[in-house]
């Protein structure tokens, strides 16, 4: 018999209740049970980071977490970044800096950066530090240059916005 568990979680502000097998990964649960197919699986062993989502404010590899571990949790995925048809500043910056080609790894980089911004003093962010952050995930198309530039530009723009409002 399958080892099934009833869980609840909130994804991008929306509540879900479902019954999930104990061994089912968070990534498969998000993609195939809940329809959040923007979270991608590139390696299923925690290296590539394409499946990065934000689980209770921390970036996690959704391929290394079981769905049941998200019971009662708040999850953010790439589908939650845009405001309606309006891309977020980070998404727009990725487009402006040609930070994506095939786009398969992109959701992972976006979530990685968002989690980082929420947790870090971006005022002191250097290119070297951004490069170190971006080195957490794999991209096979871009050579990373556009991704580093896009993340850095967004961090600076958000700092400027903070300064303006203060």
């Amino acid at each position, binding site marked *: 018999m399958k080892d099934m568990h009833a869980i609840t979680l909130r994804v991008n502000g929306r509540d879900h209740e479902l019954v999930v*097998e104990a*061994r*089912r990964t968070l990534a498969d649960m998000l*993609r*195939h049970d809940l329809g*959040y*197919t*923007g*979270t*991608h*699986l*590139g*390696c*299923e*062993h925690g*290296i*590539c980071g*394409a499946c990065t989502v934000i689980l209770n404010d921390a970036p996690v590899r959704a391929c290394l977490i079981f769905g049941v571990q998200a019971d009662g949790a708040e999850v953010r*995925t*790439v*589908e939650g*970044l*845009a405001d309606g048809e309006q*891309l977020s500043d980070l*998404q727009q910056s*990725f*487009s*402006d800096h*040609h930070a*994506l*080609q*095939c*786009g*398969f*790894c*992109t*959701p992972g980089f*976006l979530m990685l950066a968002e989690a980082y911004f929420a947790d870090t003093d971006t005022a002191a962010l250097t290119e070297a530090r951004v*490069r*170190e952050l*971006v*080195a*957490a*995930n*794999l*991209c*096979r*198309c*871009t*050579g*990373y*240059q*556009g*991704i*580093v530039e896009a993340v850095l530009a967004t961090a600076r723009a958000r700092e400027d916005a903070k300064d303006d409002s203060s």
Partner: protein
Amino acid sequence: MSVIGTRLPRKEDPRLLRGRGRFGDDISAPGQLWARIVRSPTAHGQVRGLDVTEAASVPGIKNIITAKDLPPGLVIPVRLAVGSADLSPYLQPVLAADMVRYVGEPLAVVIGDDPYVCEDAAELVDIDIADLPVVIDAVGAGDDENTAAELTLGYGDTDAAFAGARHVVSIELAIGRHTGVPLEPRCLLAVPGPENPGRAELDIFGMTKVPVFNRDLLAGMLGLDEALIHVHAIDAGGGFGIRGEFYPEDFLIPWLAITLGRPVKWAEDRAEHLMAANHSRQQHHRIAAAFDHDGRITGLRDDIVHDNGAYCRTHGVAVPELTVAMLPGPYRIPAYRGRVRVVLTNKTPCGTYRAPGRFEGTSAREHLLDVAATQLGIDPIVLRERNLLTKDDMPHHRHISTLGTDLVLDTGDYPALLVAAVKEAERLGYRAEAHPIGPAGPKPRGFGLAMFVEKSGLGPQETADVAVSKSGTVHVFSGGTSVGQGIETVLTQIAADALGVDPQVVRVVAGDTAAQPFGAGSWASRSTVVGGTAVHQAATAVRERAVQLAARMLETAEADLEVRDGSIGVRGDPNARVTLAAVARAAEPAGGYLTAGEPAGLSARRRFEVARMTYPYGVHAAVVEVDAGTGRVRVLRYLVAYEVGRAINPMLVEGQLIGGVAQGIGGALFEEFSYDDAGQPQAITFIEYRMPTAAEIPPVDVLLAQDSPSPGNPLGVMGAGEGGVNAVGAAVANAVRDALGLAGGVGQLPLTPARVRALAGRTEGEA
């Protein structure tokens, strides 16, 4: 102002950024079953038995098939046949029956409701294989028994050139086994139509690269009419050569869908990808050049062993042929002979990887030139300048043919690009950074440069349809496919330019076999050149037709009309204008402006044919730092200078070049499929198969030249897909050699820490 040449934001970006791309495993069908492939755990052996009893008893397992369940004699055929070599004995069966020849070879397929359960059951298939001796080292396996083909290309009297040479310089260089490794693994969904079994229509998602070719091939193998198979255009998570070739799974999944009358999906995992999808690159070169007293090349020869793995797949011997065909590069070489032996080993079979044959050949030739420069006492850049073909040599007939086309270097000023690249590297401080004043210390730095010729725009044809619908939307149906290169954006720019419309109103469908049944796909840096030109021609034809209809609507002569901003009007009369949308409505069957018998619709289909490829070229320069203690090599600076003829979207060309450099650094320093003595693959995760991260890739400087428009197409464009990766192995090897002050060559790529430590020890020993 034309939209061609602008940095138009990509049409693809919004959906991909929002997580709304449609990749293989994002698409599901009601009632779908999942497939799991059972693969050989043994590199070479005789299959004595496959017992599926226990696996079949697992609840939720629908079916398990082995070779005996399939129509007999099915093999993966060669797509790209070159030369006269008979490869039929070396083709891969769809499922292994009696013999297995590499770890990962498909033996059986488990089908069930749940992918997790399928994977459980696949583990329970009892495989009984009697081991046979394995061949892992292609160079050591020198006998005819393991040789699938041997090719020699060349011209002139090389023996005489070498006999009469003032200097002969030779090196050996091994290129490591690596491949494209797109971030999205392969995935296939096959959905049978309602008429079942046997005569079903079939919808397929996930064959992205050469969909029409694969559709026709599949139709033949299934005994179906090709028009009943619809390969849909979806997003693909990277191409790079490996994606979308016809693999055993590309028959198995559709066949299962038809046989079972249910949709079947297969999504491979990363370990499968690394041991079952095409490998590439592994070659051993023994290359030599003959020079006269001035350092001018009088002859070039290369003797190559190409490790093709266990079978010849869709590319047959195209990669080894391209290697020897392109090896002379941008130089004036009076006599040349390239010989390549294609050896079969008990490893994953090989196909193409971005710049196939050129990454390998450029590495060998350009490393040889640096060693020669040392031995002849000439600066490596001067040695190259002395031997480059010049503008006056163009077009230059190589007297070699490749991929069935004559190799004619069609345009360019190679010395001018070399001068520009060296100047740019100086301006950016490359050489000063490579050779800082003071003692070298434990981390010497080196500068390396390499030059190359690429090829692009392989024919024979591409077809495009352009249609304007009643809202004024311009629909482009191309045979190219979207693999991340931005084809939708490029074709949008070409169509918008030809039709005089805003790029916003253009919509591109790339690689849908129902929408474009005559497409040849996206590979060989051909989509912008051949596919783009077809779109240009079809859009131009639509424009001409629109002018013809507008003349009827405005009751004026065509010569008095101008096309501007999505409308057609009488020159000098702002009130006499019709929009493209109005013209499209006028072209409807009841639109009122068609003459008797005239076909309805504002649309055109055009086919662009090319007899020859067009040849872009470039220069790479690198600064590296070598830690002689740990053997670690860091690439500090990297420059690509590249002639592209005309850039439709410079941002995308730069993106192609920069991304290619990152892949090249992977092949030069990190990525390698190694095997143990029993033929067990040692790189089946991203822990062992080391793809570079942002920490290993420096910012890349790009010098994009548009000085030599291609004479082979009306847009003047040349391909941009492969110039970023082509010369990275060479430039990095030359820079490491420079840093370590080696007298000879580096011997082997990738330059892993262990190899670099050994090289550093050699210099210490010499000193």
